[in-house]
């Protein structure tokens, strides 16, 4: 447990804004902090760590989607005295993972609610003996009727969660939607669906746990949020705060997939370590990771939209439904973000969004880059093209006529106080892609070719940071210290998993203090060493945590000036000499800052009204798509992405975030299909769950428009999730442009294209394209 150092010195020096100042380090392409270790292959990921006398853990899982556990038998062909066996009876504390609702058991207690639910844990010193042992645990069930789809759940004939299968619901209302239909020149309706998506981080989930009476439990893991793990372990093991410690190891990709799941895996490994008395490592192989861990929520969004004769929005009636799986995990907050992003970046006087997350008997869905926004934005941005077709207007023009501008209000009646430059982003996207010229050329060529090309567009925002009051509740604490060895350390619980946390926070620290990037390092992400600066999620690191580090740096320099004789202008040597003078007095050199909610920001959790996010990142994307009408395959040939994400802290890392998000978005649209069979993922292998390869990702052109944001570290807003929001609708809009047929569901694989086109052709309803 992190112990708050005393005294915490606060400087009285006024904190100045530095977002518009010229910077030395911020905005430059310094080398990635942990880059050399990664390139030499010496970065230590969880499975690279071996400990003397270490045991290995494995999990016995449910083979049915729903049922009562009648008995658990242990086959006599195994010598069970060699094993440590943990069941629900061995849990010293609460049998619930501590997330939003404490409804998800650590181990099944008499009942299972999804396939692959953990029932029994095994540990043995020889990992090769575990597979046979797992197969030798015989669980007998009394199967119950499962609910496997949104539609089955909303029928409420079989109740599998709570009183009504509803994990969470929201109702957002602005104006009077019902009164608007009578005045409408056009009413356009549509239904849009998205499938589950796998994170497919290349490093699977893994945890090592060590127990001792004196120190309690320590876990090392590939994880995003050490304090989430800490919180669950406290409850599950019934330990005091100073007997639980969570440490992040180098993490090989996460994308949200290591936000909530590590709390479960860490609990499992900890239980085995406590009972066996040995250090226990649990790592999943790819098949187990794909089958048993979280995925992106499937969704169904219905739009009914009223427009006037000029194509301006009069009313939007939106119904959002997500499949949450068997337990709540993060479904409430995912639904919240889906709700808040469902009206798109448009101004409309009358909006109603009714949203529900439905429980089903599938593996619980969890956090995944975009967190509900990609689902909602797929629907609204596909719908805008259907509106354009219905009213006979250019899809670009429909969007332009309805864009939010400075001073407009969103569906939650949040006033756009910061500059909104959607028109500029759109113009740049059209210019860079040579949109109209290409479109004209394709229309000509498509008349005689089997491969038909088209261009599709998507415009969207992504709210940066936690939704509504989230950041206030988090109340993050972060800071900077200086070690006696003369190293400046960034103290945060925010984790590096490829996106560049280590690098950008070191840049911000160095810049705000006025020292070199090489003088800064990251303190280990260890709950005994770093304060709780909140989870590494929600595109909040650059903006929210970055701002705390910027403030901590300025505060440290202010303290050194006030109390240790640091001059206005100082050299590196003078800075460290001043630090040592302060250390003599205080015993430590440390500067911590706590989150301060921006003034004038108000959010009403009950009415779902007010400032949903402190800032929005904005983007317009264009996809060039080719559809082969003989093979029914669609591919993306070129992609343009223009965005405003505040200040760009590091051009190479920022570009990498955008490109990587677009590649995942292309996979979401055209490649990545989770195939379900009786509630279980049937294609839980990289052989048949297909992500885009080096040959599938097209040339991607990335452009930034920079407007420093006053709430973010050196003006940065969130960037990580934004690029994943737009590709799917842009690509399907491109397909519509190419062949004149609108597809409303993703993933859209060749067999899906084939099915719909052939059905339509057989009905002779396809107009000549």
């Amino acid at each position, binding site marked *: 447990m992190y112990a708050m150092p005393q005294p915490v010195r606060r400087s009285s020096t006024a904190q100045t804004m530095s977002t518009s100042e010229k910077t030395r380090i911020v905005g430059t*392409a310094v*080398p*990635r902090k*942990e*880059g*050399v*270790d*990664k*390139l*030499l*292959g*010496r*970065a*230590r*990921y969880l*499975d*690279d760590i071996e400990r003397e006398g270490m045991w290995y853990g494995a999990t016995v899982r449910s083979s049915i989607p729903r049922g009562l556990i009648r008995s658990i038998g242990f086959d006599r062909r195994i010598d069970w005295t060699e094993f440590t066996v943990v069941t629900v009876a061995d849990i010293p504390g609460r049998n619930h993972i501590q997330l939003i609702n404490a409804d998800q058991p650590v181990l099944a207690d008499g009942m299972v609610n999804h396939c692959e639910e953990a029932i029994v844990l095994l540990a043995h010193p020889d990992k090769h003996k575990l597979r046979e042992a797992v197969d030798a645990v015989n669980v007998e069930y009394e199967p119950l009727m499962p609910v496997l789809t949104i539609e089955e759940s909303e029928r409420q004939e079989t109740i599998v969660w709570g009183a009504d299968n509803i994990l969470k619901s929201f109702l957002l209302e602005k104006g009077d939607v019902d009164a608007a239909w009578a005045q409408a020149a056009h009413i356009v309706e549509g239904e849009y669906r998205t499938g589950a998506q796998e*994170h*497919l*981080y*290349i*490093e*699977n989930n893994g945890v090592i746990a060590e127990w001792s009476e004196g120190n309690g439990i320590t876990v090392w893991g590939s994880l995003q949020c050490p304090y989430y793990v800490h919180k669950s372990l406290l409850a599950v093991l019934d330990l005091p705060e100073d007997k639980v410690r969570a440490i992040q190891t*180098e*993490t*090989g*990709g*996460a*994308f949200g997939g290591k936000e909530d799941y590590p709390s479960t895996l860490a609990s499992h490994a900890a239980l085995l370590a406590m009972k066996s008395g040995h250090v226990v490592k649990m790592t999943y*192989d*790819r098949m187990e990771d794909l089958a048993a861990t979280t995925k992106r929520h499937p969704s169904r969004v219905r739009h009914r939209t009223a427009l006037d004769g000029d194509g301006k929005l009069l009313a939007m009636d939106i119904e959002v439904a997500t499949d949450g799986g068997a337990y709540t995990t993060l479904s409430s907050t995912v639904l919240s973000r889906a709700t808040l992003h469902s009206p798109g970046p448009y101004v409309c006087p009358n909006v109603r969004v009714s949203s529900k997350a439905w429980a089903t008997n599938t593996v619980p869905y969890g956090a995944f880059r975009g967190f509900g926004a990609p689902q909602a934005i797929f629907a609204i941005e596909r719908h805008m093209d259907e509106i354009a077709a219905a009213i006979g207007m250019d899809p670009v023009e429909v969007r332009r006529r309805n864009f939010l501008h400075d001073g407009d209000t969103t569906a939650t009646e949040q006033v756009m106080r910061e500059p909104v430059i959607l028109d500029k982003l759109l113009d740049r996207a059209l210019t860079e892609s040579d949109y109209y010229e290409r479109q004209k050329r394709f229309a000509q060529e498509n008349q005689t070719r089997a491969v038909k090309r088209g261009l599709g567009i998507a415009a969207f925002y992504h709210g940066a940071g936690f939704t509504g009051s989230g950041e206030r509740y988090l109340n993050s604490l972060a800071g900077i210290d200086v070690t006696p060895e003369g190293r400046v350390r960034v103290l945060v619980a925010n984790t590096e*998993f*490829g*996106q*560049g946390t280590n690098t950008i926070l070191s840049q911000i620290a160095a810049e705000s203090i006025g020292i070199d990037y090489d003088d800064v390092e990251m303190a280990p992400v260890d709950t005994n060493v770093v304060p709780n600066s909140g989870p590494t999620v929600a595109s909040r690191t650059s903006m929210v945590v970055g701002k705390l580090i910027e403030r901590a740096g300025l505060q440290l320099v202010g303290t050194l000036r006030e109390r240790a004789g640091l001059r206005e202008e100082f050299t590196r040597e003078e800075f460290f000499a001043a630090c040592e003078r302060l250390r003599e007095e205080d015993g430590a050199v440390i500067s911590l800052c706590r989150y301060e909610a921006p003034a004038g920001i108000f959010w009403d959790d009950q009415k779902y009204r007010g400032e949903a996010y402190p800032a929005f990142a904005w983007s317009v994307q264009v996809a060039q798509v080719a559809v082969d009408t003989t093979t029914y395959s669609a591919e993306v040939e070129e992609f343009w992405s223009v965005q405003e994400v505040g200040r760009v802290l590091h051009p*190479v*890392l920022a*570009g*990498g975030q955008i*490109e*990587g*998000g*677009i*590649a*995942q978005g292309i996979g979401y649209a055209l490649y990545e299909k989770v195939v379900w069979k009786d509630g279980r993922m049937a294609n839980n*292998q*990289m*052989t048949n769950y297909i*992500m885009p*390869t*080096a*040959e599938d*990702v097209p*040339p*991607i052109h990335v452009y930034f428009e920079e407007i420093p944001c006053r709430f973010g570290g050196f003006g940065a807003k969130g960037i990580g999730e934004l690029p994943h929001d737009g590709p799917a609708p842009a690509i399907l809009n491109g397909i519509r442009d190419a062949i004149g047929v609108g597809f409303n569901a993703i993933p859209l694989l060749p067999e899906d294209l084939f099915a719909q086109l052939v059905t339509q052709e057989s009905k002779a309803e396809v107009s000549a394209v």
Partner: protein
Amino acid sequence: MSEHLANSSAGISFIVNGEKRTVAAHGMKRLLDVLREDLHLTGTKEGCGEGECGSCSVRMNGELVNSCLVPVLQAEGATIETVEGLGRAEALHPIQKAFLECGGAQCGICTPGMLMATAQLLAVNPHPTIGEIREGLAGNLCRCTGFKRIFDSVAAVVVEMDATAKTGGAHAG
């Protein structure tokens, strides 16, 4: 389990990163596990265990192989190169340097395999076109970058190696 495979007291010998190594391992043990467990060369990663992701790529006798698909008995007498043999902290290999500068590595877990695939590509074809780079790296999955900066990295290595060749310099590895 067949007796002659299990009997590894004689050991299996091969050259790893220029050094002769002998391991006492079951002949069907995966080369990946021998590298990681017996030789503690943990730079080579397991991503899928079925030859799809390429994270475990190493060079064996001048070919790129997925070490998760190679039983170690096939490596008897072979010459193997892993990421650990590519460069050192004080003297990064040009491929490592380019990936560092161009943003070719993000989370880093696919990186060792991607570096070995790049080394193989450039050994066979020192001046690849963008199409040849795409094809050469298509067996190595990266979930972070969208590949663009990996292609940039490979292109930068070509430029760097050409410049070095012209000035008569030589790089280790």
